């Protein structure tokens, strides 16, 4: 009995290793996800992009992902596990994987890495991100038009430049419509925690906010806004089904084209370490349909979107006045340059909040 069990096990293992060899000529592409693939936000969009990749290049590649990988001591091991499983191109899809990705990249110079939203690179480690602040600017315009109370509620994740630049872009846009607009900001200190996000939304509404915006990943805030009869913007993904009468629009992460492009480069042997920071013009993200607003607001949003896409409108157009009342140095000619936005560590005038740690 025992013998036959062992024989069976060996046979199965052999079968397993045979199928592994036949898959060996396919390029193995790995993904590290922060949340569960069912988070309906950040990770969900990365996984949709992975599925698009498989659909496009499925005969040449094999993809693997690890989900729910915390941005702590476990991340380095998880990335290395993917390397050891034979993945040659690995996407690590959250800011907090930056140092672990770099560590593993230095250890395995022949494997290529793509790190989302970070700033550290290596000859075998690229970074990629999107200029979401362009979308935030459009949202700011809509929010100021739609808010009756003149108070916007903003759920922040971490006070890193990506999030701060989003808040500033929103406010700069809103101020062009209503110079006295107010924003209440709550830092959830998490990317994904539906409970905390819902609590933050409730607190903001209780403080008088009637348009809720979020830089966290779950649809919880949308559901709360919907229950309370307020308006809200989705985040990362299409969240209209959580608030059919609530969602104004949503910034949609559309990583698919980028992933396909990078994997094609890897297959062709032309992959190089790069820093890709794409905006509306390069389709790194998209805006969900403008809904639950009058036609004139919709038209304004569409016009702004077209102007930003065409490069005619820059959300960080100078002069920009900082929270301290002094103008911010203008390094990019008539607008802030990319470096200033990438490292943004100040609030613009009119934000009634203190940047944590400032």
């Amino acid at each position, binding site marked *: 009995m025992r013998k036959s069990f062992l024989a*069976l*096990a060996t046979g*199965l*293992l052999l079968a*397993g290793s045979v199928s592994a060899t036949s898959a060996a000529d396919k390029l193995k592409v790995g993904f590290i996800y922060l949340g*569960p693939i069912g988070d309906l936000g950040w990770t969900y969009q990365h996984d949709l992009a992975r599925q698009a990749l498989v659909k496009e290049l499925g005969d040449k590649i094999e993809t*693997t992902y*690890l*989900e*729910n990988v*915390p*941005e*702590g*001591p*476990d991340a*380095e*091991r*998880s990335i*290395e*596990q*993917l390397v*050891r*499983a034979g993945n040659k191109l690995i996407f690590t899809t959250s*800011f*907090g994987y930056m*140092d672990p990705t770099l560590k593993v990249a230095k*250890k395995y110079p022949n494997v290529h890495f793509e790190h989302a939203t970070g*700033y550290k690179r290596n000859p075998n480690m690229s970074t990629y991100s999107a200029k979401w602040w362009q979308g935030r600017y459009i949202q700011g315009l809509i929010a100021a038009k739609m808010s009756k109370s003149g108070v916007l509620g903003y759920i922040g994740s*971490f*006070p*890193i*430049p990506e999030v*701060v630049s989003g808040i500033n872009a929103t406010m700069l846009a809103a101020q062009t419509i209503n110079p006295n607009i107010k924003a209440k900001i709550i830092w959830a*200190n998490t990317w994904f925690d539906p409970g905390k996000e819902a609590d933050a939304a409730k607190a903001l509404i209780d403080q008088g906010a009637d348009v809720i915006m979020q830089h966290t990943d779950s649809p919880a805030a949308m559901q709360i806004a919907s229950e309370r009869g307020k308006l809200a913007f989705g985040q990362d993904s299409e969240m209209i089904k959580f608030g059919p009468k609530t969602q104004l629009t949503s910034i949609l992460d559309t990583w698919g084209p980028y992933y396909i492009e990078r994997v094609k480069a890897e297959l062709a042997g032309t992959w190089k370490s790069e820093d890709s920071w794409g905006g509306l013009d390069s389709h790194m993200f998209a805006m969900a349909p403008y809904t639950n607003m009058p036609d004139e607001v919709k038209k304004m949003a569409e016009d702004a979107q077209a102007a930003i896409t065409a490069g005619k409108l820059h959300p960080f157009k100078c002069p920009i006045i900082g929270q301290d009342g002094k103008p911010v140095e203008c390094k990019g000619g008539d607008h802030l340059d990319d470096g200033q936005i990438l*490292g943004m*560590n100040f609030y613009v005038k009119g934000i009634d909040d203190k940047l*944590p*740690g400032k």
Partner: protein
Amino acid sequence: MQLVLEKRAERSNTIALVSPLIAIALTIVTMVILFAILGKNPLLALHAYFIAPLTDSYSLQEIAVKATPLVMIAIGLSLCYLANAWNIGAEGQFLIGAVAGSWFAVKTQGTDAGAWVLPAMLVLAAAAGALYALIPAICKVKFGASEILTSLMLVYVADLLLDYLVRGPWRDPHGFNFPTTAEFDPVATVPLLIEGGRLHLGSIIVLLVVAAAAILLARTIKGFEIRVVGAAPRAARFGGFNANQLIILTFAVSGALAGLAGIIEVAGPVGHLQPGISPGYGFTAIIVAFLGRLNPLGILIAGLFLALTFIGGEQAQIAMKIPLDVTKVFQGVLLFYVLACDSLILYRFKLVSSNQQVTRGVG
């Protein structure tokens, strides 16, 4: 006829030994069924979970790295639990140790402080963990406050303190506002045992701790005292043992070990202080302590076994696309069976006819 649980006249030692094995066997059977339902080959899945991680030095290192904090904390907890002192707050003591040690690393950063930085960090962390654990211990002894509640609540205090520090005073000035300290200097980092690997000095320290705990419990009067106070409080009182003193002592020791585990994790695999340094080690260690039957050697094995399920779970996710949730189900099922089988040490199943049971109920 009815099946009832009946208390055994005395503890069954045979079952005490066999019970963890039964639990593991039942877990495997359950998992095989689950894998089959998921449409995965159960043998390959079990291989990915249990065998594959043991077959190369890389995975073995990772198991040791993962088990190190778990075993270190669980050893301390087992002393508490043996003495009937219920320290649930090891997670907080872990964090406070990490904070205290990191304080020194941050203060000496960029200076030409020598090789004594790391030892000083370890000592500071252990001391801070011990002091932090003494808060619930003293509240218990002096005021009779439930140490279960107070130690648990102090976890959140520690968590928020760490959060404040890395977002404020200790934040890396070049870190783009992300809540983390700068990377520690090499002198403030736990040395690796294998070049290019991840195995670090902490794994050696934990083996010493296991050996020390084994000797303490088996060969010293203090160890005897701990066991007697826990198992037979009345007898201990007649014997002149001071239960309160033991609560203080075991809390301090377990706090020190948790604090030590905290700084080793931060100065080792992580390399800097940040929120989320512990994926719940302080709580998982409670499972490890009981899975190892509060015995030092048992805890070592239990810690390695639990680490194996983490590493194996990850490999199963890669190799067979088994979702992460299955690993969590797996750990839950295991704990369930361990606790269920443990009740057989003190109870046994008995078939009785209904009327017999009524008489017993009246009697």
